[in-house]
């Protein structure tokens, strides 16, 4: 077959033809995607999109202005290039292409975003559980309109105050576990009957004679509120704050919902980018095999591709942490390699993968894991050697740092576990929960920070954040840090 295009410039017709070819290739591999919507934008519009974390519609707030200025500045002075694409987890899945890009770039982005990311959004369990792709655009429109109405009615300053306070607690405004749906009246009755029934069936008079020791425990649980610690602070504020008016509660809810929308993205960076990069690589190579793109196209493509998946060593110039594109892409490729050409080592480490159908295995991995578990499950010794991974232990009590383990036989499992741990959200965000709330007393709220391995939180920022929480709660708020031995190590408070 003859190549689709040989020139540099793109046109709408060409993009459509590339999309058709890529879609056909994707279908061969069975990628399941939402419908695609591709939008051509200018570089200024890309900067706009940057500022609002890629969302097409956002409510007005100064922090987005700051972000915009920062990006614009960096871009104009040449310190930072623009991302080639932005893709939105919605149904239809919206991908932005920049008008400045060459036709090769546009094809790459279509493969990367509209087939790679898109199928990830549709398939991955975290996205399925926590985001609602067909509702998000409507919700954003609602949020924007609501915020602007509030500004009109209550003044921009009051709204800004509320949003500032909510943003401060955004990381502590997500649910990590689904709340059970409230029971219907019918369900409640059924449950009560069931309980009585169970009690009747298991009745044994002997129980009566046992001495009661659990009394203290049950008394403690009954008098405190909330009965269980609540980790979603914004949720707690929205539901229980004594002072907020209804519009303010709605604002809290909007911020909370947005935080929840981004919750899966932060936890699947390696997988999501790795998956999309793997598929643009595979799909474009497939086009090359079919003769739909020529050598010149491939050279240009490989140059962009290798730039994206470059991983620098910790002591090299330009090192910026572990590149999720590089790690993710390498892992996806590695899974395919293990399936197709396993070595003896692979057979030992991944007996369930070796020699099976790689498309199925990759699909399974994409659907059922997040970064933490994905790395824990699939990072192979071979990759650890390729990346020269090593772990450094930094213990506050010791003078020097110690090399904890490296990419050798003794270290593989430990390095892998530590790297997985590093990608775990729970270790990045301090564990702070609502512990007590004196609803029948002075209405003060107490947060508890469970200190993990002696890691402190930034004290000055914590104080500022407490002030924000006080504004939301309306009464005194305090924060206590609980050490691993259960003792209170520090406490702060902020009066209303």
């Amino acid at each position: 077959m003859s190549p689709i295009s040989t020139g540099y410039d793109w046109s709408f017709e060409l993009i459509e033809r590339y999309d058709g070819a890529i879609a056909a290739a994707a279908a061969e591999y069975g990628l399941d995607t939402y419908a695609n919507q591709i939008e051509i934008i200018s570089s200024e519009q890309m900067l706009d999109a940057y500022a609002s974390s890629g969302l097409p519609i956002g409510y007005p707030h100064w922090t987005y202005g700051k972000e915009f200025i920062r990006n614009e500045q960096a871009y104009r002075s040449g310190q930072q290039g623009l991302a080639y694409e932005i893709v939105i987890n919605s149904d239809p899945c919206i991908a932005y292409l920049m008008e400045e890009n060459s036709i090769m770039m546009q094809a790459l982005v279509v493969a990367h975003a509209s087939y790679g990311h898109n199928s990830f959004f549709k398939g991955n369990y975290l996205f399925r559980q926590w985001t609602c792709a067909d509702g998000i655009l409507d919700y954003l429109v609602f949020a924007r309109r609501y915020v602007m109405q509030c500004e009109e009615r209550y003044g921009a300053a009051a709204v800004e105050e509320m949003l500032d306070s909510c943003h401060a607690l955004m990381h502590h405004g997500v649910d990590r576990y689904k709340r059970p749906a409230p029971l219907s009246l019918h369900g409640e009755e059924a449950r009560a009957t069931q309980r009585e029934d169970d009690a009747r069936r298991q009745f044994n008079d002997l129980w009566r004679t046992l001495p009661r020791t659990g009394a203290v425990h049950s008394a403690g649980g009954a008098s405190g509120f909330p009965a269980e610690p609540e980790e979603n602070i914004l949720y707690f504020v929205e539901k229980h704050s004594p002072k907020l008016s209804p519009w303010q509660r709605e604002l809290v809810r909007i911020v909370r919902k947005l935080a929840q929308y981004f919750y899966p993205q932060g936890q699947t960076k390696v997988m999501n980018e790795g998956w999309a990069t793997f598929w643009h690589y595979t799909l474009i190579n497939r086009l090359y095999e079919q003769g739909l793109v020529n050598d010149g196209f491939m050279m240009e493509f490989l140059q962009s591709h290798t730039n994206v998946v470059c991983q620098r060593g910790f002591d090299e110039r330009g090192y910026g942490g572990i590149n999720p594109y590089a790690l993710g892409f390498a892992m996806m490729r590695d899974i395919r390699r293990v399936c197709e050409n396993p070595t003896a080592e692979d057979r030992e480490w991944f007996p369930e993968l070796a020699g099976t159908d790689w498309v199925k295995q990759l699909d399974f991995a994409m659907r059922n894991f997040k970064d933490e578990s994905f790395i824990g499950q699939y990072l192979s010794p071979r990759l650890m050697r390729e990346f020269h991974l090593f772990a450094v232990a930094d213990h506050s009590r010791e003078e020097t740092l110690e090399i904890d383990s490296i990419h050798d036989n003794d270290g593989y499992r430990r390095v892998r576990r530590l790297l997985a741990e590093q990608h775990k959200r729970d270790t990045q965000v301090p564990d702070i929960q609502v512990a007590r709330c004196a609803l029948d007393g002075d209405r003060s709220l107490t947060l508890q920070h469970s200190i993990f391995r002696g890691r402190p939180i930034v004290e000055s920022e914590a104080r500022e954040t407490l002030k924000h929480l006080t504004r939301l709660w309306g009464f005194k708020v305090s924060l206590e840090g609980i050490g691993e031995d259960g003792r209170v190590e520090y406490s702060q408070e902020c009066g209303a």
Partner: protein
Amino acid sequence: MQLIDRRLNGNNKSAVNRERFLRRYKEHIRGAVKGMIAERSITDMEKGGEVSVPAKDLAEPSFRHDRGGDRETVFPGNREFVKGDRIARPDGGGGGGGGGGEPGSGESVDEFTFTLSREEFLGIFFDDLELPHLMQNHLGAVEKSKPKCAGYVKEGAPCNMCVTRTLKTALGRRIALGAPASECLKLARENLARALQDGDSSESIEALEREIVEMEARIKRVPFLDEIDLRYRNKVPVPQPVARAVMFCLMDVSASMDEDKKDLAKRFFTLLYLFLTRKYEQVELVFIRHTEDAEEVDEQTFFHDTKSGGTVVYSALELMHQICVARYPASAWNIYAAQASDGDAFGADVGKSGRFLREQLLPLARYFAYIEIPDEGTMQNSSLWTEYEQLTQERNGNFAMSSVSARDEIYPVFRELFKKNGATA
């Protein structure tokens, strides 16, 4: 698949957010703008400007981890480490080996610097003067602008890089850095040649050869191209109005005019200048300061140099007239003049000035504005004021005057100006 062209949608979606950001940091920005007004020349007044806000004021707090505690971090690119090696904690007390525990945190930025656009800068400048909104638009509006090359700058987008200029700079740097080594090299070569001729001991010849190799290596180590060599073409938009004008700034700089008064005068002159640049393609500035005698000076001297002495207003008016006749014939130039003074004038000078102004200058000038900046608490009109007041009654009405003691009073003079020129402005 749906393919949509969004380029036509307009791209200022973030404008509202940017404006909110500026509003929030108004105090910082206002302070910075005030500094810029003082520093800048009148002709530069309408450029944008860089404003820095301390990064800590911008920070949005949240509960997050600090350094310290126990942690293990995985890094790529191991070369020599094996398990159990101990390495010194990098500066800053830890966080993670290699200083890369949290990417980006290594190079924390203390200041958040950004550029105010021309409109934003003028907006704040006008805010201070309490101009009505309509007026701001009038002054702020430019019909057309054209990009014009304006030299080279050290940073810019890669597409604007000027290769020849960059290589020139690189060449210069290479020569400069390589100079000491090449001197030595030359010397060593000469010595070697001489030594070979004289048949010196092989040891000294070897030493010389070694030196030559070392020097050559040193010259080689100077990089061909370095980041500091990069030069980019600079382009600035230039407004494109019509015709030309000259603006005379006259100011009494006798001891009684203190810095505050000069600042007021400067704002007044700036406003007039901005107005003129909207209307005329080319506006030239002439600064005349006077004490007992008048002299033409540059802007820096005009606003910042102190000079003491008495006050003879007439001298300045006369000098202006001379300059007009010599360099700016009224047939080819639109002549504007603004005079600032604290009103001090003595004896015959007052009458003479008034007469000269009426008979010689006003017929030449398109407009003559006088602002008086009296000492605080003075209720009485100055003698110059009384004399000039008669001129406002003149029929052709190209004279306006006002007394100003605070910034927000500057504007009325301008309103006067626009009322008069209502048909043309």
